[in-house]
């Protein structure tokens, strides 16, 4: 039995343990949550080190119960199944790192440590679960868990308009989950139904034996659908579009995006790190895993649609970030802009584009988390993250300002940061697929420099704003997230092959299925 179960398992146990701690034991519950994520991180690194180089590894599967005669005499086994592959490994590691740093770097809210750590552990565990799930049922359970945990984190511990933001978060993402569910059922039942379409199947001689029996297992479905591609025809576009709609909401693509900036404006810093850093990458993960991985012909077919939406998001996000008054909104929209590039990269359906999209997920995760952490630290000291009320922060807090500048530069894609490697590959892919649209999308390179440097100029440059004298620079405990995230951004930027080899492998695997 592989270790994958404990990737999400460790933080779940940590969450349960926190429930039995004294309600006000802030230090203790923080420690427990931290240990949970640390275990996940160690396991993720071990899984990475022990990855055999192809397929799913470290699989742990449990069947829970069997529903008899679900459909046309088929039994359906429900259970949990976890595993890792070259696509999910870097993302799992990223998740564990960011979750751990969020726990280490940010204290619990006053007096409500236990509840907070419970939901926080559960939230990150759910995201780990989504990424490690090898079964549609497991995937959905984890997705729902992330939805509710995120809802409570915002609704209980957010800013003044937290209820509004939380309900928006819940409704939007709930809708996305329904879309995912519909697409999943369509995939599973569609493949199972092939067995009964006697005539068509007869003309496809080598249909795998598993085709026709209802299953939710991801590897089996991937295998089957590759072989059944010719016969499983008519419903594929509909399935893909449903999936795509869910991805668009999940990923906060324009015009389904308004929940994200509002959630980010209300949530606390640690939650923002988790949401911006990893949760918003799940949509792209779904698109890669189920869109590119299982319905590649449909990605080809709707390639133009994806590219157009990608470019719209790049530009819309950039312009909205330019018009943002506060750092939280700016970071949210810059993340939307990044994900637009992910979509553009995927739309090209070539190795460079997919690899660039995967890089961008990691890079945007690291940089968004770093930016939220720093803006949270600034907000904690100055009481605001509105650019108009800040200024001259380089004087009282040179280190935080320095890290903020680094994060901004990484986010605008300066070479030797992860942002550049991602943009380079995504555009290499995109220009091969949609040259003219990519040309428009490349305007985002200029716009990102514009809005980030405008914000930098207003925040850290210039004469110091009045209360500056009393401000303090980063505390020792805050250096850990700053340094680790910065180092990771640099490592990926300076020597991208560290994750490039794995992502290259998954890009080839995904494209190989497409034929």
């Amino acid at each position, binding site marked *: 039995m592989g270790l994958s179960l404990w990737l999400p398992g460790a933080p779940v146990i940590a969450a349960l343990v926190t429930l039995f701690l004294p309600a006000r034991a802030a230090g203790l519950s923080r420690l427990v949550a931290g240990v949970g994520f640390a275990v996940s991180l160690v396991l993720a690194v071990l899984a990475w080190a022990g990855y055999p180089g192809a397929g799913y590894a470290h699989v742990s599967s449990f069947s829970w119960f069997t529903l008899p005669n679900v459909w046309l005499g088929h039994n359906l086994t429900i259970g949990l199944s976890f595993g890792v592959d070259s696509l999910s490994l870097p993302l799992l590691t990223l998740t564990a790192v960011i979750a751990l740093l969020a726990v280490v770097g940010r204290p619990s809210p006053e007096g409500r440590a236990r509840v907070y750590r419970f939901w926080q552990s559960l939230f990150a565990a759910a995201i780990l679960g989504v990424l490690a799930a090898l079964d549609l049922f497991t995937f959905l359970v984890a997705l729902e868990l992330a939805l509710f945990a995120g809802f409570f984190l915002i609704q209980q511990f957010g800013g003044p308009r937290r209820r509004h933001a939380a309900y*928006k978060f819940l*409704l939007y993402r709930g809708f996305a989950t329904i879309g995912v569910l519909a697409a999943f059922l369509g995939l599973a039942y569609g493949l199972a139904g092939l067995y009964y379409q006697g005539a068509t199947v007869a003309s496809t001689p080598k249909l795998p034996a598993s085709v026709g029996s209802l299953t939710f297992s991801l590897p089996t479905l991937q295998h089957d659908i590759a072989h059944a591609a010719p016969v499983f025809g008519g419903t594929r576009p509909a399935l893909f579009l449903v999936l795509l709609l869910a991805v668009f909401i999940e990923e906060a693509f*324009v*015009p389904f*995006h*308004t929940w994200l900036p509002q959630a980010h404006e209300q949530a606390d810093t640690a939650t923002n790190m988790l949401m911006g850093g990893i949760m918003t990458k799940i949509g792209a993960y779904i698109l890669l895993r189920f869109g590119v991985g299982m319905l590649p012909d449909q990605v080809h077919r709707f390639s133009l649609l994806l590219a157009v939406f990608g470019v719209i998001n790049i530009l*819309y996000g950039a*312009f*909205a970030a*330019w*018009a*943002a008054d506060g750092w939280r909104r700016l970071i949210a929209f810059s993340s939307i802009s990044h994900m637009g590039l992910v979509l553009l990269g995927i739309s090209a359906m*070539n*190795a*460079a584009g997919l*690899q660039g999209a995967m890089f961008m997920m990691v890079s945007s995760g690291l940089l968004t988390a770093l930016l939220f952490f720093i803006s949270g630290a600034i907000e904690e000291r100055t009481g605001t993250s509105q650019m108009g009320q800040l200024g*001259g922060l*380089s*004087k009282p807090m*040179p280190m935080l300002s320095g890290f903020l500048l680094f994060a901004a*530069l990484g986010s605008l894609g*300066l*070479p*030797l940061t992860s942002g*550049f*490697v991602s943009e*380079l*590959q995504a*555009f*290499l*892919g995109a*220009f*091969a697929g949609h*040259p003219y649209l990519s*040309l428009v999308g*490349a*305007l985002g*390179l*200029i*716009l990102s*420099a*514009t809005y980030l*440097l*405008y914000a*930098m*100029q207003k925040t*850290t*440059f*210039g*004469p*110091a704003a009045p209360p500056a004298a009393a401000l303090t620079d980063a505390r020792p405990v805050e250096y850990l997230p700053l340094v680790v995230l910065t180092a990771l951004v640099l490592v990926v930027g300076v*020597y*991208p*092959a560290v994750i*490039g*080899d794995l992502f*290259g492998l998954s*890009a080839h695997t995904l494209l190989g299925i497409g034929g």
Partner: protein
Amino acid sequence: MTDWVWLVPLWPLAGYVFLLLSGRRTPEAVAAGVSVVLTGVSCVLSLVVFFQLGPEPASGETWLFHWLTIGSARVDVGISLTHLNALMLVVVSLVSVLVLLFSRGYMRGDERFSVFYQYLNLFVFSMLGLVISPNLLQLYIFWEMVGLCSYLLVGFWYFKPEAALAAKKSFIVTRIGDTGLFIGMVLLFLGTGGSFDFTAIFQAVSAHTLHLGWMGSQGLTTLAALLVFLGAVGKSAQFPLHVWLPDAMEGPTPVSALIHAATMVAAGVYLVARMFPLFQASPPALTTVAWIGGVTALLAALIGLTQRDIKRVIAYSTISQLGYMMLALGIGAYTLGVFHLFTHAFFKALLFLAAGSVIHAVDTQDLFQMGGLGRKLPITRWSFLAGALALAGIFPFSGFWSKDDILTAAWQQGDTALYWLGLAAAFCTAFYIFRVYFLVFTGQSRDEERTRGAHEGSWVMTVPLVILAVLATLAGFVNTPWNGHALERYLEHDATASAAAATPVHESLPLMVFSVVVGLLGIGLAYLLYGRESAAPARLAERFSILHAVSFNKFYLDEVYYYTVVAAGKVVARFVRALDRYLIDGIIEVGARLVGVLGLALKYTQNGQVQAYGVIAAFGLVVVIVVAVLGVGGVL
């Protein structure tokens, strides 16, 4: 010894890391000493490599390391040594050492002294890395790194709002060019079938195999060349992206000397030179390069005529001289462009450092607050004079050799329009630089308060001035008819240059004399107007007030850009914000409200009377039955 070339950029990197780790409390002497010594080692190594590099016409030796595999294309980083690169190493490291030394005096007492040296070290490393890149990607990486250093150093005095604005502007404007370079790079990668290597690109260009599905070889060559040139336009501050460089003068003066005169801004010229086979394959691209260069040379010279800020005058002269280099490359005179880059690095660094010395002494940049400083700052005065003569192109100073060759080449190739453009710019150049000279060093002080205590800086400031003055005077002799154009022959060993050498320049005495006379005329006019106390400049400005205003306000290009590009961007951003808030989110909010209102209305049916529910249920059943019978055709 050429095997050791990979060490050259590493010394400044070591300096950067050292200063990064030692923190901002590092004593000034340690920070400066370590930086100067380490960069000095690089400089010595560069010189050794330069002189030991053999005459093989191959594209030099290349060392490569695996960086990333994109799709199936392997991307490497490494080091490539060509004769052009070796020359650039010498120029960069030599000027860097002198500027680092000078800064010890100029920046004395600044509370972020060691941070300043940290940034400078990073810059030197990036610039050295840039000039030895074996492929376009690595060049682009360092290209952006030097841009970053420029941003950091222009904004070094971050608390000054002008410095903050200038830093932002310099980064964003060059970023526009960089995006062009980025796209050009991507297209070349795709066009060559997956390589950033210069050699692979040149092979594809010469074999006409550069192609994409939607564009043929010739079209793609021109497009890529123009996009690459856009990058050079941004970095080398060519029209129409030159607006950032004068503002960048907000940075400390040593930075202006090193980054915004001698090295980084010349990177655009270097890029075009490095990619020369690509440009050669596309006549339209070459013509564009030449004309942009010519126009920039004259435009910047015209603006330089009337500026009041000593550093801005020199900045416009930099733009103008970079225009000359582009002009040279554009008419195919590859080696001459590089030669001018070489001499310009010395005399322009000299002019900036001398200006820095003046600013250090009087603490103002306004020319009309200076005057009569020649007696108080003798070393600065004579070295500035050497630089000014070199810039004005007076025999036998270095600028004469390189600039005159370019004009001669333009004349001899029949590009007479470009020749006259260049000549007009040369006249203006001679005028404005001597206007500065006369205003600063001769006559009477116009502001006794400021100039009373003026004195030379310590040896760390004067020694670099003297060395650069010597170089500015003599550097031109590396490429004269008497030594058979040694530098040209050196550069022609490169495969990239050998093709360009097909059209050698024949020195022509009449042309030489003519251009020197034009330069002297400019100097004479400057003397007439500014050499002695006179009301003539004011009268002239009055008489031609419109022309004066146009020149003084930089042809209003800043305003034009602000009210078109920037304003449009802001309008779109505001529009998007309104769209976001009122339309997209508005629809969602209204939808949510509607659902809420519907719920409010429906709750009144929930009146607690079981009998009411029963009635509804019974009628519902009847409706179902009726529908089943009439619609479907049977209950069962």
